[in-house]
């Protein structure tokens, strides 16, 4: 018995040694970061510029893509604003495929889709990177224009909310006015979609004070940029931004723990009783796959079938 165990262990160790050697050779040969992150990316795909997926990468069907493999479904956790928007638009609702891998960070979805040629996931358009491929939805690519005119249906508002007391605060009003001004909307348009292209210019108010902003991690990168620009114009204002998620942002804004809450989902009716919500940008939810995947377009029905577990293999799509 003991002999058997020892021999088995040795076998495992030898195997592990070989596996380790096989695995560690790519990093050794190409220390450049991006290239070894997605070994399966075929040479023909041009790096897609952010937010311009109208010009999709010219990916010829990758020779090593095996359509009979299981679709690796990646989803966000229960309660995430991105997931809420995704399941309500696609009609997945509460029937999310139980086998779907649950990740609680946008970046982890990105990483996993990069690493896995058979993966599908969804992330905020603002977080898209060139290492994954965003699919067109019923033939419509996610872009500023298609999101703004609503033809790209998989989208959600990015909004801030304040309770009645804070809404009367001068500094809060001024900061929100900045978000909706030409300068603020220009920031919204960098990675997200501005809601008002013809907004008026903002003039610095010269106010002083401290603002606490918190909530959705999807809105956080946008808010960081807005904060930076606002502080450049109003150097005597301090703004603290914390994450925590849409739910936290809404409940803390209601109770007044923070001045401004950030949310990446529309407020529910009971939440609207205590809060005033202001849309500051629109954000598409991009359905992403590995660049090695030959698929370019997907329909809402197909998304629903994949994310409820009706279709489990890539050969079942198309």
């Amino acid at each position: 018995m003991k002999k058997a165990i020892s021999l088995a262990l040795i076998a495992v160790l030898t195997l592990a040694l070989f596996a380790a050697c096989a695995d560690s050779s790519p990093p050794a040969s190409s220390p450049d970061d991006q290239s070894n992150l997605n070994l399966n990316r075929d040479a023909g795909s041009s790096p897609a510029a952010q937010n311009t997926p109208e010009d999709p990468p010219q990916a010829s069907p990758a020779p090593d893509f095996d359509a009979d493999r299981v679709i690796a479904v990646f989803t966000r956790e229960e309660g995430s604003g991105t997931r809420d928007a995704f399941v309500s638009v696609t009609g997945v609702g509460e029937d999310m495929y139980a086998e779907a891998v649950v990740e609680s960070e946008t970046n982890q979805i990105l990483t996993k889709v990069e690493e896995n040629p058979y993966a599908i996931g969804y992330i905020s358009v603002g977080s898209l990177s060139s290492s994954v491929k965003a699919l067109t939805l019923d033939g419509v690519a996610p872009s500023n224009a298609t999101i703004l005119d609503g033809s790209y249906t998989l989208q959600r508002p990015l909004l801030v909310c304040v309770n009645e007391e804070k809404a009367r605060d001068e500094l809060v009003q001024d900061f929100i006015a900045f978000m909706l001004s030409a300068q603020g909307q220009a920031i919204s348009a960098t990675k997200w979609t501005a809601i008002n292209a013809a907004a008026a210019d903002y003039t610095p108010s010269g106010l002083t004070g401290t603002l606490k902003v918190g909530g959705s991690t999807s809105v956080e990168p946008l808010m960081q940029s807005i904060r930076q620009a606002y502080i450049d114009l109003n150097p005597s204002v301090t703004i603290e931004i914390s994450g925590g998620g849409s739910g936290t942002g809404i409940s803390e804004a209601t109770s007044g723990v923070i001045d401004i809450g950030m949310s990446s989902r529309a407020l529910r009716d009971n939440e609207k009783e205590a809060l005033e919500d202001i849309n500051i940008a629109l954000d598409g939810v991009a359905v992403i796959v590995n660049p090695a995947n030959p698929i370019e377009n997907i329909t809402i029905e197909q998304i629903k079938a994949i994310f409820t577990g009706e279709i489990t293999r890539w050969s079942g799509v198309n």
Partner: protein
Amino acid sequence: MIQNAMILLRRKKPMDWVRFLLMWGCGLATGAVLLYLVGFIVVKGVPHLTPSLFAVEYTTENQSLFPALVTTLLMVVLTLLIAVPFGVFTAIYLVEYAPRGSRLVRVIRMTTETLAGIPSIVFGLFGYIFFASWLGWGKSILTGCCTLAIMILPLIMRTTEESLKSIPDTYREGAFGLGAGRLRTVGRVILPSAMPGIFAGIILAVGRIVGETAALIFTIGSVIKIPENLFSQGRTLALHVLQLSSQGHNRNEAYATAVVLLIVVIGINMLSETIERRFANKLK
């Protein structure tokens, strides 16, 4: 010499070679795993270690880790300020004052053992329920410090206790013989000699504070700024690595920050080992 070796070799049966391979294989594999782990982070992170990562003010462009570094330092100091007195005093009580084998001592020992085994996520939950919500401190530096202080308390207590115990009784007898009281003996004789051991324990605790994430996620918040007072939110280095990765654009910076975190941890480890070695030499 060679003959000796031959005799020894002839003694080995096939099973002995298996055992030989097992020991060497496992030992080397363990070392290799660590090398690979450290090497991986360093190779990925070092190329992205730019001066802008250490800018005083965090902006979206530079993703500076400097505020996180300062917050980490602050957290370490504050947490130790709370935990060290309690930990050291408890150890002094247990070793120097408590009657041997009393029920109270047993209870204290048991609770310390329990405390030492609780996972950090449970400390995080507790900090969130008790300090943040019930006491109303919100997510803040203070909440985080108190949570961590409870977490490292058993560590400091146990290491202090061990180093107090390792002081030979002759020291105590000598001090008593010279007419010193118990407090004076402890303060002037025992504590100074036990200091290096206590210090090594504190350094171990610092290592835990620096690397902690699960206990801080719900207690300290995620504002990236050098904290102004005890009630501002903050973000330690380890949390910063985690949060950087959550935003999606900054994986390279996350690797680079991980390298800095690793360097800090290695430094702490080396420091603790040096102190421990010196302590061991001194007692000899």
